[in-house]
């Protein structure tokens, strides 16, 4: 499989920005914890994409790849920890909604 890769920074930046915007929106516009987690994941996808693009344009593919591998490992652990928090919250509250169960006052 050979795909011709364009060498245009702005093209990639546009797509990165769209993914990023989508992730942020998904994270902020919902009250369901699982959806927030999905938003976080979309954000991480956008960053992974941008790191590889940066490595490609800078001619440091191997370095960028090494960084991305580390990022993916960290991402998994963070997701597992978040999942644990969500499940714990659900077991105590029987709800996935963060906003209407606030026990803390400012």
């Amino acid at each position, binding site marked *: 499989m050979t795909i011709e890769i364009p060498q245009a920074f702005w093209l990639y930046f546009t797509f990165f920005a769209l993914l990023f915007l989508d992730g942020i929106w998904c994270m902020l516009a919902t009250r369901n914890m699982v959806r927030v987690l999905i938003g976080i994941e979309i954000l991480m996808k956008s960053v992974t994409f*941008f790191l590889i693009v940066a490595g490609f344009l800078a001619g440091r593919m191997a370095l960028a790849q090494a960084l991305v591998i580390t990022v993916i490992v960290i991402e998994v652990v963070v997701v597992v920890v978040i999942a644990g*928090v969500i499940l714990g919250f659900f077991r105590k509250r029987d709800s996935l909604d963060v906003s209407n169960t606030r026990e803390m006052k400012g």
Partner: protein
Amino acid sequence: MSDLLLLVPFAAVVLLNLLPKRARAAGTWIAFAVLALEAAAAFAERFGYAGEPAWSPLGAVFGFHVAPDGLSGLLLLCAGLVGITALLVAQKTLRETRERFFFANLVLVALVGINGIAMVRDLFSLYVFVEVTAVATFILVALDSFTEGRGTEALEGAWKYILLSVIASVLMLLAVAFLLLSAGDTSLEAARGALAARDPLAWIAIALFLCGLFVKGALVPFHGWLADAYTAAPAPVSVFMAGIVTKASGIFALLRIASSTLNGATPGREILLVVGAVTILVGAFLALSQKNMKRMLAYSSVSQMGYIALALGGDLRLGILAAGLHFFNHAISKAQLFTNAAAIERELGTLDMDQMGGLGSRMPVTAGTSAVATLSIAGLPPLAGFWSKLLIVLALWNVGEYGFAVVAVLASLVTLAYFLSLQRRVFFGKRDERWAAVRETTPGLWVPAVALALVTIALGVGFPFALEILLGGGA
């Protein structure tokens, strides 16, 4: 030798988990030993491990690219002292052996992260170690949320902390990508070069990374998570977080970046000044209106972190020295105040300051030590906090930022106001008859508080001598 700072705590974690289940209570002693070594290593640095690693057999196997310096030594000492305090507090406040065991393990994991932050010279590795520390801390905040009778506050505190941390991570990774585009490498050396060459991409990179660190260090406008996480976390975790985690992963990384890349150049300097001043004021006024003791201490932390950002915006050489000192003083005093809070919570079962009063005669040691720490943070001579604030004001004055210097001085008055209000509400005034039977807390909680208060006093009184050592260490 600097490799050992990463490998020894790691080996200790492995060792802890090889212990048979019955011997787990002994695991804490291993953690104590590691933390004591950590504090000792801060002084060993003076005898030249920065040169390394020709004689180190491990250096040949583990080619970690780390470079400790005077600033690292400061962080190591803080981490050692605060870690020991947190472990002592854990012995008296966490009920189950299982929780204490996990606490010791996670503190050690976070410690490796902190040591990494202290020594790395690479933007991406810095991110990795900040993340290691953060993940260990997420779990610590939620540590006792499954024991009976606990609500979901701890989980909610952890949740907020995680969300803000993820946003910080994303910003830092973007910074790494921009630096890669600009300089083709991720080391701080490369960043410095690209910044000197006035590459706009490098400026974007550093600005994004600083934003990420502002979130981690809970500077205004990113301070929302801190009070919830500190208040909801179990007592020893608040001590550990307030004393070292937030400081290392936000503030120390900020210090490192400012000292090794910024060179006091303009856009970065102004951002630090404004963010610092706003943080000081917002944090101080939020602290003024709190009822919960831990929440007040948390907002006070926010406010004091503003001083460090402000110092970095001043005269660079003096600013870094002042910031480093303030960092150390505040870490020690805040760890001590959270220990005091743990003692009060253990004896009274509440942290609501409106229900307290007149505890001074019942808990004289707690009252005395907390007075030392609060006065030091408020900047009264001859305590340690006075000197670091003086240096911060000087660092601002030297470069002609008179307005910000005045803000720094005036905000000290607000600090004094909320801390006096804390003292008055908790230790003076009329005592509720509910607390008639309250006695001084166990030695397990007041001994570390006294030790930390002595550090504050000693550093304050012997300040010229301490400054000599610090300057000699090349800070």
